[in-house]
């Protein structure tokens, strides 16, 4: 059975050109970038080039890119690092109730340490309004962290407008762009953000690498201390081949950003059309919000998510109940709770399908048919 992988938001296949770049970097250059001899210098050169290419994808300066071990570390460095570095200015932090756990759990840790955190509510579409941010903002706010594109329902926030609210305020503005990076055009200067996190494995790069954009002048306290790598902002021998591979993945995405966006949109529309054609009862969550085109979160009334996912799995379809990071235990999604409330039927009956460059229309037609088949089974299995 050919499996149909519709979980690209959890992680994505590594692009063959990225694997080639990874292998080439390993075979041509294995040095330590801090060494002063030629092996070290050529490693440094590869690292610098990768950093320049990554910086260029978001119109940043190479010095503003801190390479990390992934999106979670980037989010932690942003939230914890900015909070600790700015504690003398205040202890109030604003984030949202739909963030990835890498931001949410960092914020909760700060609460335990005496910071005060406001979790902004969202609309039924998963949107943060400018008013809620304005109302929450205080004189002693030192950090605002709002996700760019949500990983579960795909809602895109108007980051430019939200960052504009705090433009003349002391606070640092961070956005978790792990899902948006490589799908949306990102220009950090137009957006007006101070910190922005990304991850390679969501854009067909390898796992174990990501970066945090840090606007020049934004203060951070490092998470890892030791050697002087990453301009003293992140100690540890740089994983250069991973950085080179990340840059390759980012370049590929960047070169076809518009085309990829349109392809994802048409795939999603096709998928929805097929489900409708087959008479499947469903609603699209966060439908009227602006959405990431590769994420499609569907509510199937009267179904039970655990059973549904098992049935889909048996039918050869890989999908998810929410983020993979929390998928182990199928707890109700905190994002759907924030959107619909604790008692909403959506919590027990929604599935996230997410697409990528290997997804085809044929796969989605087949997936829609299988979903229709699974849902046509006697209702008793849903109990």
């Amino acid at each position, binding site marked *: 059975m050919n499996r149909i992988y519709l979980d690209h938001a959890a992680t994505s296949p*590594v692009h063959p050109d990225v694997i080639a770049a990874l292998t080439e970097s390993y075979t041509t250059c*294995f040095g330590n970038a801090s060494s*002063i001899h030629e092996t070290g210098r050529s490693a440094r050169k590869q690292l610098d080039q990768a950093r320049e290419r990554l910086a260029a994808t978001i119109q940043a300066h190479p010095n503003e890119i801190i390479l990390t071990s992934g999106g979670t570390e980037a989010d932690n460095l942003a939230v914890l690092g900015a909070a600790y570095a700015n504690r003398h200015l205040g202890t109030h932090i604003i984030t949202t109730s739909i963030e990835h756990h890498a931001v949410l759990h960092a914020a909760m840790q700060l609460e335990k340490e005496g910071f005060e955190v406001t979790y902004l509510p969202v609309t039924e579409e998963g949107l943060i309004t400018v008013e809620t941010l304005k109302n929450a903002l205080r004189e002693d706010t030192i950090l605002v962290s709002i996700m760019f594109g949500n990983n579960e329902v795909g809602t895109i926030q108007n980051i430019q407008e939200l960052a504009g609210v705090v433009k003349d305020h002391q606070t640092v503005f961070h956005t978790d762009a792990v899902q948006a990076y490589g799908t949306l055009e990102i220009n950090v200067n137009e957006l007006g953000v101070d910190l922005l996190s990304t991850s390679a494995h969501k854009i067909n790069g390898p796992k174990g690498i990501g970066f945090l954009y840090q606007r020049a002048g934004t203060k951070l306290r490092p998470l890892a201390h030791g*050697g002087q790598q990453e301009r003293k902002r992140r100690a540890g021998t740089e994983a250069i081949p991973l950085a080179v591979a990340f840059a390759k993945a980012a370049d590929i995405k960047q070169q076809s950003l518009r085309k990829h966006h349109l392809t994802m949109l048409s795939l999603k529309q096709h998928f929805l059309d097929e489900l409708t054609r087959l008479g499947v009862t469903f609603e699209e969550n966060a439908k009227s919000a602006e959405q990431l085109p590769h994420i499609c979160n569907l509510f199937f009334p009267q179904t039970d998510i655990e059973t549904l996912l098992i049935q889909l799995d048996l039918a050869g379809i890989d999908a998810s109940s929410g983020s993979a990071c*929390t998928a182990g235990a199928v707890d109700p999604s905190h994002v759907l709770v924030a959107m619909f409330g604790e008692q909403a039927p959506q919590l027990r009956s929604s599935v996230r399908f997410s697409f990528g460059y290997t997804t085809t229309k044929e796969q989605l037609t087949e997936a829609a048919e299988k979903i229709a088949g699974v849902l046509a089974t006697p209702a008793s299995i849903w109990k």
Partner: protein
Amino acid sequence: MIYLDNSATTKPDSSVLDSFVKVNESLWFNPASIHALGDQTNRLLESARGQIAELLKTQTKSVIFTSGGTEGTNFVVRQTAKARKSIGKHILISKVEHPAGIEVGKLMLDEGFEVDWLEVDSTGAIQLEDLKKKIRRTTTVVSIQHVNNEIGTIQPLQECLEIIRSNSRAIVHVDAVQSYGKLPVDFDSLPVDWLTLSGHKFHGIKGSGVVVCSKAIDLEALIVGGGQEFGLRSGTAPVAQAVALAKAMRLAHQDQQVTHDKLSLLQQRLLDFFSHHPLVTVLTPKNAAPHIVTVAVKGVTGEVLVNALEKHEIYVSTSSACSSKKKSTSHVLEAMNVPNELIDGVIRISMGKDTTEQDITTFLKTFDLILRQLERNLQ
């Protein structure tokens, strides 16, 4: 090319690289996903974890993957001390730790911990009397390297452990980044509480590492989020790195005795040569780890020597790579009280499993040639 800077980083083994690429090609799924592919990937991750546990003689759930040695040391030392704050705030760190250990200590001083630094003697070994003096009933963490990365000293861990165990209930962390693959490293031979390892120091890949404990020990996560790695290290687990690490460890473990014996002979050749050279002072002590030889050369700076050797495609380093970009002198040599006039002329030759006799012969010839040229230029 003759690469004699294996303490900075090593060339990945081709079979390790193969496994790494293969996982990236075929099992690139998220091990936390509940579908069949996620499950298959997770099983691979867990089997890598199991192999590492077996090699280090501990339980599977005691193995936590990290992004490398620096993260490992930061995580264990700092987060254990934080978790044990109710017992005490006193921690001990040796003066010759890798910069990761030193910087963590400094940071903790700023955070209100009481940090004492353990003195070393002229061979770079911890002074046991100093340890006896500084250890307290309420010391919560002690962090000591197994092998020093700048000069190769093997720390007297057994003696240190006796003192620590009979005077405190401190958790003992050992940075074994330099020793794995060269000396026996597991919880039977080193009955400590935590070990930190880094893949790229034994022909694995950069961005992979592991911290391992001997039994369940309380500590807080350093990186929080999805709750992976038993809640102790969040972030999508890079399974390819984990598999590559387990493979590199297996190979290093298999060859450990052979590597040790081979490198010991090569080291002896280097030491014989250097100890008879009028311009050279050997800094690496007797009974050091077999892969490192550090010397001070009179009348010339380390940088000049590194550059001169490089012209012959021979790569050595001044001190450690992590500190070689710094302007200040080595904290290790300072702690050993190496006289100032020697410190400028230090080079470190660090060998790996692929270093051959011919490499050392060529190195020695070239070194001799360079020194003769330098002498002529001076006259």
